[in-house]
């Protein structure tokens, strides 16, 4: 019997798991996919928002501004990659100016930090490649960029290192409320837990329905992005938003934490929760819209297009509550943007909720280790550090991914950490091998070989990301027998 079972190892579930791991509890984190951060948490803008945008008084506003302030400490402990680069909401005319002033006022009420209304010259000085037509902007010093999947992985890994039991490939198919606990049915053995936290993202409505909670639905809203080579990264230094209008929120342009230019997202409600297709029409719209902010990016330098589905709820705000109908069942649902920013603050609040509910008593652990062992990223190390490292571990001197300068040592490290992984995408998200301009063209065969050597999985059984996403069908000459 677990004290608490968290369903969903996205950024919300992982942040909650890590926060609860500070207490003497038996915790379980369930994930239907082969790795953590496999849904919305892996495909979004990767931005720690300033907190001026969400309407004052909403949960989004409350948790976004609070979450923003927690990131410096988290980065110190977990080393996932975070930088406060600042953001601009750029305006072209008087209508935009009015909106920007309103955002500024709203931001002050939300307790967003580092806000300032600036003129076009201020913007131009910091962002020389932006449009010449910018007249006004809302500058927010406290906004930052992160690598969202590395953040989620870091949270989950640190949670596991502190005793949380992570079960991957474990889809919840039913939940039964007993007198003083829940029985969670999966395709493996059922799991018993006193408290259930529903952090199932796009599927949180489906999970809630399993215990009869039907007062919200999740409507997936797809956002499509275009990612460029690092050769285009210099075009922006901070995060560039467009002023929201009645027609929409506009698209952003950002230099990602790792230095690529990225534009997007689009915003389309779709039917299927796991439909993360990209479409010609939408990507062309994104490109067209982004040109308004940043006129001169080079489409020849596009590395990839991708999309992610935001888990928007029919309540149009975050749902963060223990069910009144079903005590012990906590919904953390409808966590759309700015959910990534809000995640650490939501996690802290969940601890308060659990403490207040008297369902279980919380005792702080004496031996909680907040530190996650950092990766030795060859691309970020100086010659002296590298020489010392390679002398001890020669595999850090063998570069496997030439585009992102990722060594064999980093890949082996990723494969031997406390979250058991075995897919190409899991390796990619931890090390960046295959993230670069050749998109794995050169390193895929080499990574297959490393996975085989390290984990003993036959190459034909190695998958890209999900069950059935095999890379090869078999040995040559034998594949058809």
């Amino acid at each position, binding site marked *: 019997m677990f004290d608490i079972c968290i369903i969903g190892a996205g950024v919300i579930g992982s942040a909650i798991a890590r926060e609860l791991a500070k207490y003497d509890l038996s915790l379980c984190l369930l994930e239907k996919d082969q790795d953590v951060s496999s849904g919305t948490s892996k495909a979004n803008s990767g931005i720690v928002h300033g907190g001026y945008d969400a309407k004052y008084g909403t949960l989004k506003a409350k948790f976004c501004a609070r979450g923003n302030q927690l990131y410096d400490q988290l980065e110190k402990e977990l080393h996932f990659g975070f930088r406060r680069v600042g953001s601009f909401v750029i305006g072209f005319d008087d209508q935009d100016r009015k909106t920007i002033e309103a955002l500024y006022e709203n931001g002050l009420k939300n307790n967003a930090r580092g806000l300032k209304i600036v003129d076009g010259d201020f913007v131009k000085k910091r962002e020389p490649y932006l449009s010449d037509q910018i007249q006004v902007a809302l500058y927010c010093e406290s906004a930052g960029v992160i690598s969202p999947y590395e953040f989620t992985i870091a949270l989950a890994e640190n949670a596991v290192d502190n005793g949380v039991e992570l079960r991957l490939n474990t889809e919840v198919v039913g939940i039964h409320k007993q007198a003083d606990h829940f029985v969670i049915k999966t395709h493996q053995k059922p799991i018993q837990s006193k408290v259930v936290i529903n952090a199932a993202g796009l599927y949180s409505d489906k999970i809630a329905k399993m215990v009869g909670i039907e007062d919200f639905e999740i409507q997936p809203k797809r956002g499509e992005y275009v990612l460029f080579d690092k050769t285009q990264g210099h075009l922006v230094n901070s995060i560039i938003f467009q002023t929201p209008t009645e027609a929409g929120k506009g698209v952003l342009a950002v230099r990602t934490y790792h230095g690529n230019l990225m534009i997007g997202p689009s915003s389309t409600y779709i039917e299927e929760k796991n439909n993360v297709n990209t479409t010609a029409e939408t990507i062309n719209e994104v490109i067209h819209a982004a040109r308004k902010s940043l006129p001169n990016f080079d489409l020849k330098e596009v*590395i990839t297009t991708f999309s992610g589905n935001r888990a928007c709820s029919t309540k149009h705000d975050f749902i963060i509550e223990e069910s009144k109908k079903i005590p012990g069942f906590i919904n953390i649902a409808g966590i759309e943007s700015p959910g990534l920013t809000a995640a650490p603050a939501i996690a802290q609040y969940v601890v308060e909720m659990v403490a207040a509910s008297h369902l279980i008593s919380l005792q702080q652990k004496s031996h909680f280790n907040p530190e996650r062992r950092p990766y030795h990223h060859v691309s970020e190390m100086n*010659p002296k550090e590298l020489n010392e490292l390679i002398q001890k571990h020669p595999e850090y001197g063998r570069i496997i991914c030439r585009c992102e300068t990722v060594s064999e040592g980093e890949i082996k490290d990723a494969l031997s950490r406390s979250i058991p992984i075995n897919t190409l995408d899991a390796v990619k998200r931890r090390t960046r091998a295959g993230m670069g301009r050749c998109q794995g063209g050169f390193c895929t065969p080499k990574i297959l070989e490393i996975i085989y050597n390290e984990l003993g999985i036959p190459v034909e059984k190695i998958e890209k*990301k999900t069950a059935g*996403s095999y890379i090869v069908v078999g040995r040559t000459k034998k594949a058809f027998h």
Partner: protein
Amino acid sequence: MTKQYDLVVIGGGPAGMAAALSAKQHGVENILILERDKELGGILNQCIHNGFGVHHFKEELTGPEYSARFITEIQKTSIEIMLDTMVLKIDNHRQIHAISPNHGYMVLKSKAIILAMGCRERTRGAIRIYGSRPSGIYTAGTAQRLININGYMPGKEIVILGSGDIGLVMARRMTLEGAQVKMVLELQSRSNGTLRNIVQCLEDYHIPLYLNHTIVQIHGKNRVEGVTIAKVDENLAPIKASYQYIPCDTLLLSVGLIPENEISKSARVKLDSRTRGPFVGELRQTNIPGIFACGNVLHVHDVVDFVSEEAALAGYGAARYIRGQFDTTITHQTINGEGVTYVLPQTMNIYHIEDTCNLYLRVNKPYGRCQIEAWIGNTLIASKREIRCLPSEMINFKIRKEAIVGSSDLRPAQAIDQQPTQIIVKIVGMDRDPSLP
């Protein structure tokens, strides 16, 4: 570790090996080849089909056989080789930064450097094919490596987009391994591959080639389940009425090669947007004194024999530079005339040319009988007749030194303020061959 060399060659593929050997033959002593893979040979190691060496060795060899001949030659010399070594950058002092498991982080000083890093393949993202992102999408070269080096089959039912040579070769290769290659699609109204490969890799195996076709969507959540193909109009836009779903488990892409110049950029080598490789002179010198470039890092070749020929020039150039016999004057400049997409070298120092200068060029569309001409002002200085010129086939065009000198207003070498004389290279089409693809 800091070491000093006369010449460091970055890349141990066909270009790097031929360049190092040539430098050696021209008297350079202290030579190092840096190779990222665990053996020399570069991409030739996975090109197990034949057709290599017809010009250079006057016989047909496979890729590994072709490279083995160079490896054998190198082994007879004192040329030093560092395998498993990745060059990270060339700094402003022209020092090479590299790492390897055996030597750690190295800073190498060298009197001259030859860039021979080769090229990479364009990806799905670069040509923006939309839809889902399952496994089963490979560039043709990756599939080639998986099959020929690693011994694994990437899939069973194959659709190939792009009719570049590697795609055509892989259509045959996968057929021979038992896969069903359903079709090869080509966006343009002609193939990018050589005629020889279209016949020997597609027609001989009854694999259909659909010209003016592309892929508009990829289907499948986990593994590729199919693609939607479409005919394109004259603006290359897909025609909705022609959409057709083709089930398959694998998509191979052969949609172009890009010279891999990240290291060149770190050394501030100036690149030509036409070739995506460095601007070079007759001995393949770049704008940075002492840095030379050859092979696919300079421009994408379709025949390795010409890579070897070009690399020998770079090796000779580096040898002259190391001896202090290199004059950076630019006396001539080659210009694209009608019908030409690029001419290499982009510049010339006539004083370095002994007898003839060999130009490499590509045409912008297919020509039947035609004449390639080089002009200085109103004077035709060289011409060559061809039965056929295709954009996919690089043209080799020799100009005699005396023809250039006779028509140029040359001042003594080292005259810095001298404007280079322009040599315009163009195609004069005689007629369009209706049988052309």
